[in-house]
């Protein structure tokens, strides 16, 4: 099938094009998943509106204590950016294991969100970091928690011509971690991934714990039970193990060519416990100055 390619020079023009061209028209950022879906006949893509040359949307900049990341920021940039590595180590870790180096030079953060794969690597991190997504539409801009954007496998609550422009990480997340399991050690779609973020209060108790898993449900999954259970508790191996059990119980994975549901549940537990342990170590290191 021929593919009509449009390259708008402004967000306004991009939205207009999308409205005119309708269903079979897709926004194109890095295209690292969209084009594969099209080539494998899994998505009808008659036209693309290429966002990749829109200026200024790939910036990573401070936002209060946190970060504001343009939707067109490449995985490679997130992986290597010094501020991301310090303020949100889990995001750098997740970006680092998306595809191979060539893919990471193309794939974008906004694309990873909009693509809404249940196995996306950066989306659980954004959930664990309580990120907001800034969305521009024909009727103006809105700012929504990332969780509200996810609607299921390959589906978001984005309206037809809405474009993700930025991701906001309101607070630093020095105590965050991301782990991923796959059959290989690189170039993998997650069999399961886990992202966590911990904040401690002045007494050293858990002020906030956030935990999200990938590839264990029809979308990236927040394990709210575990988050609630850990709040106000002193971090300990036993606590993390209990949270891991809740993570396993919350998982609703499928069996497929990559792994069985049983193994995925098992990994949900193991990765959760390890990610919590690692995030805690990082947090302690960040507060005491002693490297983890």
């Amino acid at each position, binding site marked *: 099938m*021929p593919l009509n390619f449009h390259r708008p020079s402004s967000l306004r023009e991009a939205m207009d094009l999308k409205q005119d061209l309708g269903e079979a028209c897709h926004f194109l950022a890095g295209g690292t998943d969209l084009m594969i879906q099209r080539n494998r006949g899994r998505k009808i893509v008659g036209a693309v509106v290429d966002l990749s040359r829109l200026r200024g949307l790939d910036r990573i900049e401070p936002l209060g204590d946190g970060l504001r990341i343009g939707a067109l920021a490449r995985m490679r940039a997130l992986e290597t950016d010094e501020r991301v590595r310090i303020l949100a180590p889990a995001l750098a870790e997740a970006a680092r294991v998306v595809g191979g180096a060539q893919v990471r030079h193309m794939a974008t953060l906004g694309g990873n969100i909009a693509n809404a794969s249940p196995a996306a690597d950066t989306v659980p991190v954004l959930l664990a970091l309580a990120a907001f997504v800034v969305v521009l539409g024909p009727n103006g801009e809105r700012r929504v928690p990332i969780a509200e954007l996810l609607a299921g496998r390959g589906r978001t609550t984005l309206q037809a011509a809405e474009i993700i422009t930025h991701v906001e990480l309101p607070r630093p997340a020095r105590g965050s971690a991301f782990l991923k399991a796959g*059959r290989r050690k690189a170039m993998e*779609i997650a069999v399961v991934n886990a992202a966590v973020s911990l904040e401690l209060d002045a007494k050293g108790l858990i002020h906030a714990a956030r935990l999200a898993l990938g590839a264990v449900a029809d979308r990236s999954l927040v394990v709210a039970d575990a988050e609630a259970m850990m709040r106000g508790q002193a971090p300990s191996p036993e606590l993390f193990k209990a949270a891991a059990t809740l993570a396993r119980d919350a998982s609703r994975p499928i069996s497929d*060519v990559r792994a069985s549901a049983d*193994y995925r549940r*098992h990994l949900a537990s193991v990765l959760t416990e390890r990610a919590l342990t690692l995030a805690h170590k990082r947090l302690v290191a960040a507060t005491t100055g002693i490297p983890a």
Partner: protein
Amino acid sequence: MLKNYHELLGQSLPRLDGEPKVNGWHVYASDVRLPGMLVGRLLRSPHPHAAIRRIDVSAALAIPGVFGVITAADVPDVRFGVLVKDQTLFATDRVRFHGQPVAAVAARNEDIAERALAAIVVDYEVLEPIETLDQAFAPGATLIHLGWEGYEASPVCDRSGNVCNHSRIHYGDVKAALAKAHRVYEHSFTTPLQHAGYTEPRTSVAAWDSNGLVTIHTNCQLPFEVQQVVSEVMQIPLSSVRITVPGIGGGFGGKLRIGMEHYAAVLARHVGRPVRVSCTTEEELIAAHPRQAAHVTVKTAVDREGKLLARVARALIDCGAHAGSGPSVAANTLQLLAGPYEIEALDVQAYAVYTNKVPTGSFRAPSGPMANLAVESQMDIIARDLGLDPLEFRLKNVFTENSKGPVGEKLASVSIAECLNRAAEAIGWVRGNPEANRGKGMACGWWLVAGMSSGVVLRLNGDGTVTMQSGAVEIGTGALSGAAQILADELGLAHSDIHIAMADTQTSPYDYGSQGSRTLFNVGNACRNAAEDFKAQLRQMAGRIYGVPVEEVQIRDRGVVLPDKHVPMVEIAKIVNFREGGLLARGTTFTPGPAFDASRVKNHTLPAWSNPSFFAHAASVDVDEETGEITIRDYVACHDVGYAMNPAAVEGQIQGGVTQALGLALSEEIIYRDGIVQNANLTDYKMPTAQDVPDIRCVLVESPSVSGPHGVKGIGEPPCICPPAAVANAIATATGLRITSLPITAEKIVAARAA
């Protein structure tokens, strides 16, 4: 003569094709474009097993830009196949695997070709697929080929129903040996289908000329076999088919059997224009020539001291819907089931079995890793059970010089004990298991050099260089570059003075082909013989030209040395052209197999192995206690290469082969469900990445072969054989878990631990 007298031999010289390949300007078959060329595409069956009721191509033909659509009705009704003639160009009344070609189109471009494929209507009556070996092998199983008795087949194949060859090696009194045994062990192992993993998909460009000759530019490994098949399928004289191989982006045995050549040729004839057919990744994964899946059962009897008394084994080899290489691959398991061991009595049998899956090929060391996994895993199990160190247990039983092989052949240059000891030393072998979740394992084996014949033609060029024509394809191993080292050494030329001509059936001398670890061995011998002819002719010519006695003419130092002067090759080459009609020289070779006891072996394509090589591998692994993730920390591959003609190239072969086999060991498999491939893409078909493979350390043993050039033995395939067993054994040491099916995934480890 001192060994280092030869300046070019045993040197890690850069490959002659290295620079263009590294820089990206080497021309491969997929780069060939001809004026007016059309795109050819195949319509493939979506069903694993179905009867075809009707095919309607009229809608496809009506699409503007479609030049032709062909089905079985448009081509000669011919069955072909190397050993069993059980396949047709297009499915006739029945499809037997998901991906089988049903029709082909030629169109102006890819998009139109795709639309044409979608417009072809095929009315299928879907049948139940026979997917597993056990289903197909069971008594009374549904026949995959109803009329199998009527197929023409090589007399070497013993066929029956779904079995397209049953081969056997049998000697000694197995019953008596089992009866007197201290212990008898029996284990079963399974291995999956593995794609050969070449980078360049199978691609052919065909064009017919005014003389009725079809030229096919392609990336096959065996141009002379492909020429034969095309002539057979199209019912035209052999000499009307010309196969050229400009360059090939990897083959690994997956491009031995015919690929897209016949499709390109029939389409080009049908539409009267050049046609290019190239496989997509999906087509590669559903319909190439992968490594057979196998199910191997081994029963071994030992005495109290740990000497092997008897072995009884059965290998089921899953050929898929057509026999392809299967009958010989199955037979080849027999030598591997015996292993490099002296065994009092042996009865090993192999069955090549049809299923409704992809027809298979001859992927690097065909049968090697499947049978070796079974034998070498069991060797470790036995050693542990007897309280013996696995190294010690192997050393007690391995072949020694002049041992008799499984078919009674006398073995020479036997180095297996040295390989084992050196691999153990390099990996830091320790008895027992000092660390939890970390362990070492080893495996050893042997492999043949395929013999048959090779010819080389040399041409002295006007600039004093020499063109070497060989019908063997440089498939990326560097074997022809190595043969050029031998040739340059013989002729007193520089390595870069040798040009390797493209393999072309119209001009190249015959060669049995780049397969069976034979290329450097055989082409190298042909080069030595051709060099003799070249030098004899050149001496005669120099004698005539300069009026000196022939015996006073020497050929060395890039020229001709006469009693009173040195004539550079460039100078004499010009005179030879003007006065002598140029210089063409020729050399051939044929390596016969060893003498053997024919009563021991039945239905085997290569009953006695020629010039075998020996090897031992050792791996050190970590296994994650909770996730089951396996990390290979260290890997040693010790190979007896006879003589390392080009050590860097030899190490490259070893590292590449180990890498491919680590893929089979840990991650690769073509997965079927209900006869349909579930992972026909490189997202879910997992070849190892650089992160999955450790630095592979090579240890070279040089125990010269009897008949290879300068003692060379084969090295193309052997590195692919031991890795799965070595890794499985290391995992067993680390975890106490014995995984008997490949690939050994983290999930299998966790499941075994839970059980």
